[in-house]
């Protein structure tokens, strides 16, 4: 119980402290410290769950099982590395005069609050609180996206706020219907919204209400996941905000939204006894992969390019969860991990690259390898990892997903492969001239924070070649749980 309190308490405390002394010079260091404490608490919680199995504490309000504990650990870890990266990044931004100290204060406190909301969304057992946490996450990041006060960032923030607000509202309606269906069985009061309760009784829930509820929930949380017809806010929000925010948005928030969708799918799956929920997710997933890979080739801005790549990868994960079965779920969970690690690493390098050449337009960034070799190689390896080149983990999960797709839904495999081929062609043709060739980029005033990048890529490489046994059982348990 203490771990959960610690995991949630530290970011909240961090947000408060940073709100108070955000002005001072050592605010980034404090930010890192709090992130580190959160990470430590998350590790403690993970160990606790491994040792003693799922936790249901605080009068069943918080529920930690093998599915969300690895997401908590991942969120805390990426939060820590992003904090480390943002220290150097923000110092360079400050020296460039693009951010004042006041805004930095807002940035640091909102960053910690955002971490807290994500962790609450992951740990809570109450579907209502899950919705509230998601809404809070949206609100905290809206301000972060519009930190630079440029017309483009304002537009991105406004669209982000309206589209996600409307999406989340649908999710609220879905939650209400869920509550409505559950209330008949579990009676009024708090019990009807608890996931564990719903999970036990899901077979008797009313199918028609559940299917309509799932539609609202899928459209709601699907907007946050960035599934294609609802994805329009994602490229703008991820490209216009400061890089640490884009990294955390792309790396973590999308995962948390998908986590929520999967939680709902588990309930609906139990009651509907047909594959309606899974087919819906399959359809959205495949549509996202194909459309995103098509849109990739039209990008001019490097962060928009990788935002679309996030849409594509979220599509892959939704497709995998949609297929269901032990192997596909296992692959989807693995893909979640490696995608957030690789994507955040890429955003770190892209951030520094943009700072070095002063622009995010890809045609003006040239020859990173010669300007600063670490940055160039980091971006090259990161891009190859995200495109699913083998030694890296993304290939392992994509291999498993493709293999199950060929087995269970052969009609989908060709679309998948064509989309992956198109994405490879588009992204690599734009990144290759950026990394290699004669250099135009200037030097960075401070050495780029490449430590987080190579830690992430190292982990992804490790996962590509050898998945540690404890992690493998973790994923297997979660996969069985998801069903």
């Amino acid at each position, binding site marked *: 119980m203490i771990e959960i309190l610690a995991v949630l308490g530290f970011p909240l405390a961090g947000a408060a402290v940073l709100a108070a002394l955000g002005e001072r010079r050592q605010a980034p260091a404090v930010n890192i410290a709090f992130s580190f404490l959160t990470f430590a608490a998350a590790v403690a919680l993970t160990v606790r769950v491994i040792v003693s199995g799922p936790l249901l504490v605080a009068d069943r309000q918080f529920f930690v099982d093998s599915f969300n504990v690895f997401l908590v650990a991942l969120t805390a870890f990426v939060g820590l590395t992003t904090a480390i990266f943002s220290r150097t990044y923000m110092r360079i931004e400050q020296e460039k005069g693009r951010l004042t100290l006041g805004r930095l204060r807002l940035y640091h406190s909102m960053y910690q609050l955002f971490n807290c909301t994500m962790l609450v969304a992951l740990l809570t057992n109450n579907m209502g609180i899950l919705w509230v946490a998601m809404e809070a996450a949206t609100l905290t990041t809206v301000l972060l996206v519009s930190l630079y006060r440029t017309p483009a960032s304002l537009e991105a923030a406004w669209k982000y706020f309206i*589209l996600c607000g409307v999406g989340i509202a*649908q999710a609220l309606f879905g939650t209400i219907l869920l509550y409505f269906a559950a209330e008949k069985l579990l009676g009024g009061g708090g019990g009807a919204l608890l996931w564990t309760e719903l999970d036990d009784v899901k077979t008797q829930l009313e199918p028609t209400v559940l299917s309509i509820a799932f539609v609202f929930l899928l459209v709601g949380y699907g907007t946050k996941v960035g599934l294609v017809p609802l994805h329009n*806010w994602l490229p703008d929000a991820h490209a216009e905000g400061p890089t640490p925010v884009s990294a955390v948005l792309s790396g973590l928030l999308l995962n948390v939204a998908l986590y929520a969708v999967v939680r709902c799918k588990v309930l609906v799956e139990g009651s509907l006894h047909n594959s309606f929920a899974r087919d819906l997710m399959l359809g959205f997933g495949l549509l996202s992969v194909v459309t995103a890979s098509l849109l990739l080739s039209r990008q001019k801005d490097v962060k928009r390019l990788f935002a679309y790549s996030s849409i594509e990868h979220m599509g892959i994960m939704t497709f995998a969860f949609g297929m269901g079965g032990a192997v596909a779920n296992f692959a989807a969970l693995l893909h979640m991990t490696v995608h957030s690690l690789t994507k955040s690493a890429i955003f770190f390098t892209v951030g520094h690259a943009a700072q070095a050449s002063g622009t995010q337009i890809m045609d003006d960034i040239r020859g990173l390898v010669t300007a600063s070799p670490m940055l160039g190689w980091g971006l090259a390896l990161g891009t190859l990892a995200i495109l699913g080149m083998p030694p890296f983990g993304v290939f392992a999960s994509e291999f498993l997903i493709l*293999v199950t797709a060929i*087995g269970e839904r052969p009609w989908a495999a060709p679309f998948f*492969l064509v989309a992956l*081929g198109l994405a490879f062609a588009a992204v690599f043709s734009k990144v290759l001239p950026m990394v*290699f060739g004669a250099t135009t980029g200037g030097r960075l005033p401070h050495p780029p924070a490449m430590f987080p990048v190579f830690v992430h890529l190292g982990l992804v490489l490790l996962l590509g070649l050898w998945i540690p046994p404890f992690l493998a059982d973790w994923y*297997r348990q979660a996969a069985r749980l998801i069903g």
Partner: protein
Amino acid sequence: MTVPPLSLVIAAIVAWLAIGTTGLVRPRNLRFVSRALFPAGAIVGLALAAVAGYSIDLPPASAVLPLGLPDLPFHLRLDALSAFFLLLLGAAGAAISLFSAGYFRSSEGTPPGVICFQYHVFLAAMAFVLVADDAYAFMVAWESMALASFFLVITEHRIAEIRRAGFLYLLIAHIGAIAILLAFGVLQGGTGDYTFDSMRAVILQGAWPTTAFFLALAGFGAKAGLLPLHIWLPEAHPAAPSPVSALMSGVMLKTAIYGLLRVTFDLMHAQLWWWGVVALALGLSTALFGVVFAAVQTDMKRLLAYSSIENIGIIVAGIGLAILFKAYDKPLLTAVTLTAVLYHALNHAFFKSLLFLATGSVLHATNERSLGKLGGLIHRMPWVAWLALVGTLAAAGIPPLNGFVSEWLLLQAFLFTPSLPQSFVNMLVPLAAAALVLSAALAAYVMVKFFGVVFLGRPREPNLAYARDAGRFERFALIYLGAGCVLLGVLPVNVIALIEPVNTLLIGTRASQPIADNWLLLAPISADRSSYSPLIVLAVIVGVVMLTMRVVHRLYHGRVRHAPAWDCGFPLQTPRMQDTAEGFGQPIRQIFEPFFLIERHLPSPFDPAPRYSVKAHDRFWGALYLPIARGAESLARLAGLIQRGRISVYLTYSFCTLLALLFFVR
């Protein structure tokens, strides 16, 4: 044997990786990298070749590594087929590593340490491909090989064409890998078990074997450079530094051949005869296309790259013929054809690496690649010239050397086809034999052009006078490869004894009687039917030549006077009057006009500095690749319409999705 060969092979792979990573420790230190690491890599290569040679006739050994996915760890297997190709990789790899010891200088491109790392990861990945025994391990090794070679191709990434060539190479390699993955998907036949053993057990029904075969042909053809997917080869090989292009041309293309043999002969049982016909036709058209384009090239490395396409075409044609024979259940004829295929693969690895390394030395001495600016190098670079002559004769398929032996075996195989029941095939095969012979003859034309324009005649540029011969390491590597070409050509019987177990593995039954009985005479079916003994031919020729030389010199005094060239009495002679590369290729351009897309630049009559240039382009760019690119472009523009920018439009998307789903649910 105390240590099983498979673990030795794994040890070799790990050794290569270790050498590579030590290179990374001090990337800028050239002496350490070239004097210690590359020779070490060469020694590991030799050891690998020895182990592979030894274990070729041992029963297959397999092992499981703890790496890989939890429920699909890496399976490894060393059987006769992978042992043979490991032998090829080790032997050729050792020479090329030795050459690179002397070749790499601290150029401004990637630091030598990084090159050493990428190089040895490339070697390790290729070795891993040859021993992988399940789809996941194979794909990981396959694409790591493509990735490592991609980074090697763009070592001098300052130049735009090299970056473009690198991108094209990795893109087509990736598409090929996707096709291979689909092929494995079909081969596992719904069992969900992706190890090769289970694929061997699965009997596919209906149209699945055909789809699997054609997917594998497309996938491995993309890496080997078969016709429609060959575009990257003439771009990527010349772009890479010479030792890397030698490794790619000599060895990497053979991993694609290994993959094709593994899938068609080992994993799939049912072989339909018309697969063979398709592979035969595709192979021969690739061979003809490759050699015709090689004849009109003006860049020596592009010329060799196109000639690699030709040799790969011949090998795939041989595989097609082998499939044809196996489909009609003629084990002996399949054995002869497969021997020819494997023998040619080994030969090509040797003589193509020799030629690419020779161009490497020429490039280093003159740093000039276009044939128009070379010439007369035999005087200043005798070692390189004479060893390149050995490679040229081998590539042209001249009797005593190895190129001729594999061509001879393949022609013998073509001669046995009349025994096939299918009358249509009996008609087709003479034409196939004719096309094969035509491409072999054209190969001679190309090689004469290559050697003549580069090494013979008078130097076309003044700075060629300062060209120095190759260094110690480079010379030793060239000698090793030259000796390899000669030995492979002169001792075919022993080499075929090496290939015998591979045939038995691939065909299943033991061939009725060995192809080569006594060590001197190569007689595939029976001695009186057809036989060829290169050793005797070489001995007779050398004997006669020595005899005439002694007789002429002793009987008639051997006084020689040096004078300016006679040249029918024309007084004025300048080096520019020699044939240029375009000139030597002109007859081919004339005869094979429809093959090319010719772009001519003719000077106008009052042009102060008339420049005449002609470029022969590849029709496939316009016919196949640009339409695909344009199609993808227009599709993307269509998709771009979604992101129109207006928030109300986005809200409508969300609203319509909601209504559609609700309507659908009710």
